[in-house]
């Protein structure tokens, strides 16, 4: 069968027809789930806002379970499968390997998400995303998750198969592009994640139907977090790839050093998943050596990799901007960046938010001693919202603004909204997260319906500051949801009502030209700091990190009086 390709005249990207269809389908499905998860998020935040306290306790835990699973697994993994197909087939100008298997993957993921969704809606599976045993959920809750994971695993192997096809058919010269390499990193972490999920969820499913008498709760927690936390590391690798892609798309930026960036991804592959251990830091059954090696010694190598990416992406943008003549002072390159273009602004807010809020707090939570101050408080979602929402979701939103005209051949609907959306979403999410962290530091629990403990036999009276923090969490949570709704309206509106772009590109059986080797990165030796503005930003980051880390130790010393 002859393969059909088209070349987008706007971007020069080459689309293989089956891959293009599957990228669109996975991305649209992801956005639909994002809308559903966002509505559930609004209900959660309106309940944790003490003055509103919207839902009943039963409904709160049900909605929170749905919000967690849809946002942390379903929305994000559907979008990541779209990214995997884009980074393999489109960026390598290759046919997609085994499109039929890719369709099966999509069907399993959709079916699995639907089955788990039904289980949650039926009300017998309000067990949160973690579904810790011995708290039971309905059997089809686990079954749906298993089917979803199998579908995602097939999608990963379609990606790997496409890399093999591209190499065998010589569709590119040299090594795979850096963005595809980042997607490969995400794919590898996804495979470990899914394997961990299978190891624990299959026995848990058998336990739920009565074939296994019990599941050890500690064993469950250790292995489950191999899936639960690693699934968020897929996001990190994927959104870092998106940062590199957008820097290249918007500025024509080339990585400051391909070798350094690829080595940083290699550090992710080897070490990033070990950070799962920080969830087990207060569990008594595993030893200090295991905890410290996994959360500190090994995880810091992954943190180093994130800092490399956080330095090289803005550094590459600065070098590209300076080559265009924006050389005045330290920050003209940044002031003159296209801040009205949501592709850029979304990416840059994602980068800064991920680094300053998600990254620094991640290291704090991975340190055994200071983790004790905030373990299982609302500080934890205060950490992962800037990581997964501000970091990953906003980066994916930014990429979507680029893909709508290129992939769907539609102009953006309400471009003024699109221009402001990353700021509204970024501002709301960042402040919501900061106030969650503040409340968590004061001891407010996560996943708790009523911080006033009304009617509980053992109550605790939080001070006014904690209530104020939770009120501000509610207000900025609503701002964040408004930002998310703006994105969904712009994207869905663009697909339905957006003006069609006059695109003469047709599908042909002509094989696309081989992807040439990228131009060599400019030599920076002997030029001093080629990106001095980025260097200053890195020093600001370092200073912020040191001060915040010190403050946490100081706070710990006040919790544990040594005198």
């Amino acid at each position, binding site marked *: 069968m002859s393969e059909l390709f088209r070349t987008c005249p706007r971007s020069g990207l080459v689309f293989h027809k089956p891959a293009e269809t599957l990228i669109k389908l996975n991305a649209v499905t992801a956005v639909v789930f994002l809308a559903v998860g966002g509505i559930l998020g609004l209900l959660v935040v309106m309940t944790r806002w003490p003055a509103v306290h919207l839902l009943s306790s039963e409904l709160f835990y049900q909605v929170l379970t749905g919000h967690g699973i849809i946002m942390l697994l379903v929305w994000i993994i559907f979008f990541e499968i779209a990214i995997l197909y884009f980074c393999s087939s489109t960026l390598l100008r290759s046919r997609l390997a085994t499109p039929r298997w890719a369709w099966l993957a999509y069907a399993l993921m959709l079916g699995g998400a639907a089955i788990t969704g039904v289980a949650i809606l039926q009300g017998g599976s309000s067990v949160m995303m973690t579904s810790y045993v011995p708290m039971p959920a309905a059997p089809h809750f686990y079954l749906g998750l298993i089917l979803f994971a199998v579908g995602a695993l097939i999608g990963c192997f379609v990606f*790997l198969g496409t*890399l093999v096809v591209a190499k065998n058919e010589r569709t590119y010269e040299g*090594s*795979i592009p850096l963005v595809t*390499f980042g997607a*490969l*990193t995400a794919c*590898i*972490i996804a*495979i*470990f994640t899914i*394997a*961990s999920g299978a*190891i624990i969820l299959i026995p848990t499913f058998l336990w739920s139907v009565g074939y296994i008498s019990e599941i*050890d709760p*500690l*064993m469950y927690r*250790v*292995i489950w977090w*191999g899936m639960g936390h*690693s699934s968020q590391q897929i996001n990190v690798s994927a959104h870092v790839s998106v940062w590199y892609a957008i820097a290249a798309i918007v500025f024509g930026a080339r990585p400051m050093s391909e*070798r350094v960036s*690829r*080595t940083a991804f*290699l550090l992710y*592959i*080897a*070490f990033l*998943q*070990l950070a*799962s*251990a920080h969830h*087990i830091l207060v569990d008594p*059954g*595993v*030893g200090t050596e*295991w905890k410290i*090696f*996994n959360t500190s010694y*090994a995880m810091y190598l992954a943190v180093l990799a994130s800092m490399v990416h956080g330095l090289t992406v803005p550094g590459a943008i600065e070098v590209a901007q300076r080559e265009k003549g924006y050389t005045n002072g330290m920050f003209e390159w940044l002031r003159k960046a296209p801040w009205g273009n949501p592709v850029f602004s979304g990416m840059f807010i994602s980068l800064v938010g991920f680094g300053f809020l998600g990254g620094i707090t991640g290291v704090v939570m991975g340190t055994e001693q200071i983790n004790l101050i905030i373990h299982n408080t609302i500080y934890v979602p205060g950490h992962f919202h800037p990581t997964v929402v501000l970091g990953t979701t906003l980066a994916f939103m930014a990429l979507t603004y680029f893909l709508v005209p290129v992939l769907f051949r539609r102009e953006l609907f309400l471009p003024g909204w699109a221009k402001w959306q990353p700021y509204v979403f970024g501002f709301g999410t960042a402040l919501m997260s900061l106030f969650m962290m503040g409340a968590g530091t004061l001891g407010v629990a996560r996943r708790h319906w009523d911080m006033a403990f009304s009617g509980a036999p053992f109550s605790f009276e939080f001070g006014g500051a904690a209530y104020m923090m939770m009120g501000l969490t509610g207000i900025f949570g609503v701002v964040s949801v408004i930002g998310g709704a703006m994105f969904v309206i712009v994207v869905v509106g663009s697909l339905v009502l957006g003006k069609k772009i006059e695109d003469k590109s047709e599908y042909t059986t002509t094989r696309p030209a081989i992807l040439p080797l990228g131009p060599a990165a400019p030599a920076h030796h002997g030029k001093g700091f080629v990106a001095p503005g980025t260097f200053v930003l890195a020093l600001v980051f370092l200073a912020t990190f040191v001060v915040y880390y010190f403050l946490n130790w100081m706070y710990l010393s006040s919790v544990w009086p040594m005198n």
Partner: protein
Amino acid sequence: MAEPVQPSGNQKEERVPVLQQILDNPFLLLFIGVVMPTVFYILWGVMEIVTIPIAN
């Protein structure tokens, strides 16, 4: 007996560094990415749990 063939200068130059060979092999990377966390996180963690003495 034939003289052993000496590699030309070009062949010497084209030798791919070891790190590059690792980075260019997705299945070797997959092996590293699965084995490292399986050994250091899963197996080590599970071994610690199963060796907890049973209370009498």
